[in-house]
């Protein structure tokens, strides 16, 4: 079993919601935690024990510089949690808008940039450091139940399905170095962004369709991260944490 204590963890989108819960949980377990986030105001609210970088993780050069400086400070990175992302919904064909029925291609590309390309950028740069330093680390990618296809979420579903495919691919490629790659596919979790994105009626409907009849809590996602880090034989898996919604 691997201990989280004394590990160096990078959490993207760690200034709020799931990422914040993961960052706080890792700190509590004794890890040195670095949070990358776009929201400077929320970053400023994080405790001093968390190292913070305000950065756009779709910018390859900026990520490279940031990771270089993290490794120069902490010597290594053991855990990468690719949590940052934006839930995005748009119909593929919207018959309610006859003047422009098609899904915007620009918004499709932008969404892939945020939810998919950023995961590639972060992981490739940090995996290189892990290989060079022979760090037997773990890359944890946040997927979603939408990876299985969700009406009204072409871009988001495509990005998350690709994230799961990358997770499995990396688990095969990097396993020889002892580097693991695992995805978590959360269902509906009780966060500010969920409550912002969904109205009360929809949340009630989701609860009713979930065998456990409730939303998940951010702690449930941190518990999954902890399990993945500590169990060093878990590799290439997609952990569904959705209360049974997708069964």
């Amino acid at each position, binding site marked *: 079993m691997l201990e989280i204590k004394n590990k160096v963890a990078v959490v993207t989108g760690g200034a709020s919601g799931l990422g914040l819960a993961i960052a706080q949980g890792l700190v509590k377990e004794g890890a040195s935690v670095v949070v990358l986030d776009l929201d400077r105001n929320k970053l400023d609210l994080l405790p001093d024990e968390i190292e913070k970088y305000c950065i756009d993780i779709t910018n390859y050069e900026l990520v490279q510089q940031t990771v270089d400086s993290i490794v120069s400070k902490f010597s290594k990175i053991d855990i990468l949690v690719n949590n940052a992302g934006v839930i995005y919904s748009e119909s593929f064909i919207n018959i309610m808008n006859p003047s422009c029925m098609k899904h915007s291609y620009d918004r499709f590309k932008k969404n892939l940039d945020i939810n998919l390309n950023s995961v590639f950028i972060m992981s490739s740069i940090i995996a290189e450091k892990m*290989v*060079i330093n*022979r760090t037997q680390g773990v890359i944890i990618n946040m997927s979603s139940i939408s990876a299985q296809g969700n009406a009204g979420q072409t871009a988001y579903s495509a990005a998350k399905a690709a994230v799961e495919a990358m997770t499995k691919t990396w688990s095969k*490629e990097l396993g*020889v170095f002892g580097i693991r790659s695992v995805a978590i596919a959360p269902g509906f979790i009780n966060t500010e962004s969920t409550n912002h994105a969904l109205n009360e009626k929809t949340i009630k409907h989701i609860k009713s369709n979930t065998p456990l009849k409730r939303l998940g809590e951010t702690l449930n996602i941190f518990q999954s991260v902890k399990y993945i880090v500590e169990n060093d034989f878990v590799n290439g898996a997609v952990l569904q944490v959705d209360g049974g919604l997708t069964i």
Partner: protein
Amino acid sequence: MNDKVKEVLAEVFDMKSSEITVGLTKDDIDTWDSLRQMDLVTSLEKEFDIRLEMMEIVSLDSVAKTVEILKSKGVDVGD
């Protein structure tokens, strides 16, 4: 080159030990791609208890080079 080195290379590249000769380069071995290169690195490190630097890893492109690097690390590779 001794049998131990041959065995490691044969295992990594799915070949018979008897097929491994010092004159082979990566162009002669169909299975020698970037993924096997990673396998080669970790197998050599584990088997001979050494640590390869990045410059050495990228220069591993033949059996002869592999032997040369192992020798430079103090590994007994035979004649």
